[in-house]
């Protein structure tokens, strides 16, 4: 499977004329795209705005972010199973509008009012201390603002938000179809020097079977109580994995953009044939409800690594749940016991001052760990010059049930308030050091 990812960088976005990409400028016909979104009767109003890096803008009620990509050759489409039939993707040629996102800010009437299954929102600051923590302060964000009609169920809300953002992204990427790419990067797990170390990536993703959307979907199918699945890394680059579009919030779930620009996948693909032999991705659903389930997933994921004759595994997780964390640590242990050496990359806890233990559960085999910083630290969010978002932007709920925030003012919050604020996959240069 050979995938050419053709890059079309965006340096400016204008709401002007017809929808068009030329010379790094993306022109958007607002009326055309609003009409596209309103084709879905679950959406009662839609609008667009844009936020650029460095300006004192805060985007609120963010629920998901995607990168505009278009399949121009090869099987399937980008976001298979959602925008088209379920066909295995990851080969042929895909165009990407880089440096730009479709960031969806949506408002709807929640039917689940608290707990983990409730819809959540996040913030993005384009400047200030919070901008250092998220990839979305460095991208031009085309903010799609949606209001859904009353009476939608939670799963319908997810489907409406996701359908709107993916179709807008697809339409924008369509502008590149006949254009020449600035550069093309090729991703392929070709036959390579057999002496290179064989490395697998065990990508732990926290999902919950009993929520309206489990949190992560593969080919549009929410991953519920399943056992590990073997996936080619290129599939992720074509949008095979998507997130619950209702729950951008709390930085706790990687959004769709992060699945498409996965830093560990990209690093391993780029090292393939040079320093290592990348065998593929074991997508491991985690957060089993019993110790028994945790042991079964750990046994299966490590067995899959052994059957692939892996020498080593990179292991990551998503979600701040301590329950979920145990599944991942047991997987580290099971791999090491089967002779597959591991490195575990994770953000840590540690409390606001860093005086608490960094992790909640340890196994003696976890001898190599990389930290991407603490998810417990607080940030002072400064007052912005402009607030963008769906609905009333004066008072916003981040996590249902917790105190409301006033986005036009300065307030104290944690990294989880930010879309992409917690670094699950090592995309940032953040770490923790002992003092």
């Amino acid at each position, binding site marked *: 499977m050979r995938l050419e990812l053709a890059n079309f960088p965006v340096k400016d976005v204008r709401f002007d004329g017809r929808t068009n990409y030329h010379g790094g400028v993306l022109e958007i016909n607002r009326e055309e795209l609003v009409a596209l979104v309103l084709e879905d009767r679950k959406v009662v109003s839609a609008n667009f705005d844009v936020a650029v890096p460095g300006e004192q803008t805060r985007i609120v009620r963010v629920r998901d972010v995607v990168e505009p990509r278009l399949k121009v050759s090869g099987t399937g489409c980008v976001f298979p199973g959602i925008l088209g039939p379920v066909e295995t993707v990851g080969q042929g040629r895909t165009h990407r509008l880089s440096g730009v996102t479709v960031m969806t800010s949506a408002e709807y009437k929640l039917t689940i009012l608290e707990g983990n299954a409730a819809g959540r929102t996040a913030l993005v600051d384009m400047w200030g201390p919070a901008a250092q923590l998220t990839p979305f302060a460095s991208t031009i964000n085309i903010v799609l603002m949606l209001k859904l009609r009353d009476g939608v169920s939670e799963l319908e809300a997810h489907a409406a938000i996701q359908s709107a953002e993916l179709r807008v992204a697809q339409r924008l990427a369509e502008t590149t179809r006949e254009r020449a790419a600035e550069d093309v990067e090729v991703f392929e797990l070709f036959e390579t020097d057999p002496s290179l170390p064989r490395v697998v990536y065990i990508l732990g993703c926290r999902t919950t079977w009993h929520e309206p959307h489990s949190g992560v979907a593969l080919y549009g199918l929410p991953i519920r109580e399943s056992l590990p699945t073997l996936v080619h890394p290129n599939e992720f680059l074509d949008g095979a994995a998507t997130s619950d579009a209702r729950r951008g919030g709390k930085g706790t779930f990687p959004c769709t953009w992060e699945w498409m620009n996965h830093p560990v996948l990209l690093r391993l693909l780029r090292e393939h044939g040079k320093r290592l032999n990348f065998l593929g991705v074991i997508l491991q659903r985690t957060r089993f409800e019993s110790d028994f389930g945790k042991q079964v997933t750990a046994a299966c994921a490590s067995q899959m690594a052994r059957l692939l004759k892996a020498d*080593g595994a990179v292991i990551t997780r998503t979600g701040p749940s301590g329950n979920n964390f145990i599944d991942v640590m047991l997987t580290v242990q099971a791999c090491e016991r089967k002779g597959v050496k591991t490195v575990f990359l994770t953000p840590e806890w540690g409390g606001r001052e860093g005086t608490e233990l960094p992790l909640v559960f340890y196994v003696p085999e976890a001898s190599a760990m990389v930290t991407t910083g603490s998810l417990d630290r607080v940030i002072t969010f400064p007052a912005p010059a402009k607030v963008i978002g769906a609905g009333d932007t004066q008072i916003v709920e981040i996590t249902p049930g917790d105190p409301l925030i006033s986005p036009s003012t300065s307030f104290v919050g944690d990294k989880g308030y930010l879309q992409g604020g917690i670094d699950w996959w090592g995309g940032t240069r953040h770490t923790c050091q002992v003092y």
Partner: protein
Amino acid sequence: MALRRIMYYVNQFFGGIGGEDKADVPITFREEAVGPARRFQELCQGSLEVAVTAYCGDNYFAEHESDVLASILEVARKYHVGMLVAGPAFGAGRYGFACVEICHFLNISLNIPCISGMSVESPGVELYKQYKDKGVFLIPTSEAVSGMGEALSKMARLASRVVKGETIGAAPGEGYIPRGFRLDAVVDKCGAERAVDILLDKLAGRAFATEIPIETLEGIPVAPPIANLKDARLALVSTAGVVACGNPDGFKTYGNTQWRKYSFDKMNSMKDASWDVYHGGYNTVFMHENPNYGVPLDVCREIEKEKAFGKLYPFFYSTPGNMALISAMQAISREILKDMKAEGIDGVLLVST
């Protein structure tokens, strides 16, 4: 830059008074650099000056700790010292302990930096890790006094930088013994690249440095069985986040630091009253429909009638147990336990969520 005046602390041996036979010598102050303080001052090359040396017998310190600390504080104030340097204590247990106590006390009392040195095996190090004072630094030294020269050089180098107001970085780079708190930092390579580098080092058998050390968590011993369950008074404890209707106690969906107990006296099921559910760690829709999942009053009443145990305590203890700090939950459990002892509770059913 003006000379910074410091206080130096040594024990009776390094103060030149004598060995174990002089361990009862009371705290004494001399307005000059004594013993290792002299060499330390030379090594600092004029960046600071020892205004006063304090020395005290090891036993005297242990037996009169609060009095000794009070007089050290008084003298430190009198001389307007900007830093305290103590030791190095090497492997000496009582001396190392005294150095850490004095550093901690002056750091929190006067907000001045304090530097000492000792062997990483010294019992003082454990105390230092408990205090986690941002302004106290211990330099690792040899076990034996033969390492004096090297220890004093390292302490002087660090002291000269601290005195200039330089920011002291993370422990591995700076060479002091980690106090144990962890702060965010930005490094040259992203996490994904560091992870691949470490994995390749590990696979090739090269040395690598983990970024999170493995900790050994204290095991929780299993309590002995209740001798006479038939007469026992049992209580329910739940971390499911079932709280009074309207959440009058202001529980959060995560990171709680408090607990409450709520009465279910005369009820046969949690469905006999209205409750709220505050918990950000699971899908609470089911708990709203039937709070007996989190607080199994219905079943407990049935088996109470069957006399499986003596009596159910008429309140349940509650805190939403999601993403709370371990220290906060330990504090909550201590408080709950105290209340249970006062209420004569013999056993607890702790419901997992």
